[in-house]
């Protein structure tokens, strides 16, 4: 009797046939199981003795389905070539854990395969098939939904985005009163600058640094108020429709603004998605040039539009190549060229360029919290690689890598910080125009930080920290107190509400999963309470997949939302931004 197949499994098999092209079929039939790819994978190296992490093993989980349904030997003698079909939803879940949880699509095995089998490409295809039937990690679902519905992968609302840019402009103009700040929606600009939403949420300093560089170069530039996200979760989820839609929105925005060139901020997957894959997914030929901001910055220096003083960046630095930049876009010499222009002490990392190891946060891994433990185990390879350089800073041109590296540096207790080229260029900038203020005022990287490192910047504010992890409460409280804030603490939902009523804080940080009333319930009660509704809330959670539970409420969304792990700089930055925006709105 024929085995019953679930509806979802049947759809996956049917859609597989439609996804196949010559490149993918070639990769599916050509593997000879030589095992040469095994040592190329960081998951294998960090899990010695476990063959289930081997690229060919993982590839065979996808290949077996293809063989069973589309390859003649597999159709007639399935057992002979390990051909196997999908039958149940459990089979789909198992496949999900492999294609999302055991591979970052870094493509290192691809360039080490003697046959030229491109596992990353058909692994992405398998992700897309699963996503098409709703089988995916929760974080992928949330982020994809945000990018479909809100237009960016972190669900940054237009109001928050524009507020942040205006706030950054005010900050810049406080220091340099005649600075043009950040131009928004300027028509006919020579450069349209697109960013990663992470910059708005966690790292606005990269935006202000870029703005400082554009302004110092006298560039006629702008940022769009909408459709500004150059990241594309379609690359990670394998959803070509999402990929095409996101890319098209950005391309059309540039055309609408009559921009002459699109400059993409430092982000590996954003660069690859926008610059390389986007036109393919969108089936859209792009009429304007696109370049990485790394190239833009090099050109400014070479053309004498900006001057830099590399003696301002004296610490020993190494460079981490993003997989998407190096292995899929050939962007590896330019970052080094720029780095050598702006820092004195560069130490190469080995292996490097297209042979570099993944930061282990790639392929959307940072949004899949269920796989965090195995991700951090696999990060040992990268940690050892970083440690061997003896550098104090690891520089990277990718926001995803910033998060992945920061996480592993913390986990493996490395004495190292992560920074990006835009930060180093801004720091090395020699500003001799009177309007821009004296160069000496630029902080050195060792002191960096950002926007908010001035002690006492939170003086006079009372902040309630609500989280059931005592260590996290202690960490956040210490950071806030060191910056002058008065802190009150709560360790469960009920206590959080009680303290909010009693202390009337200027801001509240809120964990989502807490004993007693959950953070979601607390948030809803706060918003529906006339007296408490005015308190700005910053969600701090280690479970990004629960994000939709907050944003799906029929109440005003939180003023801030950050994922754990979070570092000191991001805490201060986000808290300050929320407080200052609240103040300017007269809350």
């Amino acid at each position, binding site marked *: 009797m024929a085995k019953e197949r679930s509806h979802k499994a049947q759809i996956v098999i049917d859609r597989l046939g439609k996804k196949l092209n010559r490149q993918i079929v070639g990769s599916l039939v050509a593997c000879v*199981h030589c095992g*040469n790819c095994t040592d190329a994978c960081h998951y294998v190296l960090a899990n010695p003795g476990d063959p289930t992490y081997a690229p060919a*093993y993982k590839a065979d989980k996808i290949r077996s389905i293809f063989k069973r349904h589309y390859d003649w030997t597999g159709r007639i003698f399935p057992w002979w070539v390990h051909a196997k079909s999908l039958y149940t939803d459990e089979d789909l879940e198992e496949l999900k854990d492999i294609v999302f949880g055991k591979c970052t699509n870094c493509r290192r095995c691809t360039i*080490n395969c003697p046959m030229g089998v491109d596992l990353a490409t058909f692994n992405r295809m398998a992700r897309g098939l699963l996503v098409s039937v709703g089988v995916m990690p929760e974080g992928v679902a949330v982020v994809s939904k945000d990018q479909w519905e809100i237009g960016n992968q972190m669900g940054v609302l237009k109001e928050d985005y524009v507020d942040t840019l205006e706030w950054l402009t005010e900050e810049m103009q406080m220091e340099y009163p005649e600075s043009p700040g950040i131009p928004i929606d300027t028509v006919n600009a020579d450069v349209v600058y697109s960013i990663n939403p992470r910059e708005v949420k966690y790292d606005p300093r990269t935006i202000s640094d870029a703005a400082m560089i554009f302004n110092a170069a006298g560039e006629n530039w702008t940022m769009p108020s909408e459709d500004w996200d150059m990241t594309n979760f379609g690359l990670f989820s394998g959803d070509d429709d999402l990929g095409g839609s996101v890319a098209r929105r950005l391309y059309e925005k540039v055309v609408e603004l009559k921009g002459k060139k699109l400059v993409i901020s430092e982000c590996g997957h954003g660069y690859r998605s926008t610059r390389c894959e*986007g036109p393919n997914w969108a089936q859209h030929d792009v009429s304007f040039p696109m370049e990485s901001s790394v190239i833009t910055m090099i050109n400014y220096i070479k053309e004498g539009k900006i001057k830099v003083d590399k003696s301002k960046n004296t610490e020993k630095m190494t460079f981490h190549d993003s997989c998407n930049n190096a*292995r899929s876009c050939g962007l590896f010499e330019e970052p080094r060229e720029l780095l050598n222009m702006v820092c004195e002490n560069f130490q190469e990392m080995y292996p490097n360029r*297209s042979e570099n190891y993944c930061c282990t946060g790639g392929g959307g891994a940072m949004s899949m919290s269920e796989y965090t433990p195995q991700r951090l185990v696999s990060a040992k390879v990268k940690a050892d690689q970083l440690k061997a350089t003896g550098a104090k800073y690891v520089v990277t041109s990718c926001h995803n890598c910033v998060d992945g590296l920061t996480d592993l540096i913390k986990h493996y207790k490395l004495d190292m910080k992560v920074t990006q080229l835009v930060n180093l260029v801004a720091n090395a900038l020699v500003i001799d125009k009177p309007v821009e203020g004296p160069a000496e005022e630029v902080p050195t990287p060792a002191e960096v930080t950002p926007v908010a490192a001035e002690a006492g910047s939170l003086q006079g504010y009372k902040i309630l920290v609500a989280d059931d992890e005592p260590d996290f409460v202690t960490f956040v409280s210490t950071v806030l107190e060191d910056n002058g804030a008065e802190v009150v603490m709560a360790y469960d939902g009920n206590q959080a509400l009680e303290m909010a009523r009693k202390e009337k804080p200027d801001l509240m940080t809120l964990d989502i999963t807490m004993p007693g009333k959950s953070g979601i319930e607390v948030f809803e009660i706060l918003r529906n309470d006339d007296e408490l509704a005015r308190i700005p809330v910053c969600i701090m959670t280690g479970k990004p997949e629960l994000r939709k539970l907050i944003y799906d409420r029929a109440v005003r969304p939180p003023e801030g939302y950050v994922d754990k792990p979070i570092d000191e700089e991001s805490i201060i930055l986000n808290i300050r931004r929320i407080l200052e925006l609240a103040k300017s709105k007269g809350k």
Partner: protein
Amino acid sequence: MFDLEFARGTLHDVALAVMMIVYFIRLYWLTRFKAGKERQAPTGIGDTNSRKGYIYSWGNVGMPWAMESTRTKLFLYFQFVIFHLGVTAAILLMFSISFYFKDSPLPPQLALTFKIIIGAAFVVGVLRIIRRIGSKYVRAISSPDDHFSLWLLTAWFLFGYLAANNNIAAGEWKSFTFFIMGSFFLIYVPFSKISHYLYYPFTRYYLGKSLGRRGVFPIKRFQ
């Protein structure tokens, strides 16, 4: 009827014809899938392009230094070279006997050359069998086809080594077995992993073309 004459004559020709026909069908099947189109503008520093990319990619087989996976495992790489030279030599041996030396032994120097290459390939075959069974990584990815193909070729090398002189007087069974196995091999190839060389030009072409256009191939390494 089922003798050496038949094995190295009719059977061999039929097997060869079957292989060719199935190969053409296989290639037709592969080319029926549409090739994905790349619309992106080139990336990289401009020192390479699609053409350089696929030429490099095709040449990869002869450049053990090009990939970390071969650079760091030179012993395996040389095994690969010897094994594939062995396959080529064994096929040439079959053709030589079938078409030129049907009724006479091979010239001693030619026979010795075949013996050295095919004998070395047999040793490599044994090492590969040990690796396929002994390495838990390789074992985990091996299907019955992988094992059978390897055993088949290794045994074929053994009989190729024994039959290389084509000295029928010293024992017909060696040549007979070599030709029977060779014919089976020709028929089995298109249905097995051994047909990988049919796909090699395609996979490496498309990967090289794409990565050349994107400035990745030829791979650059900083020592």
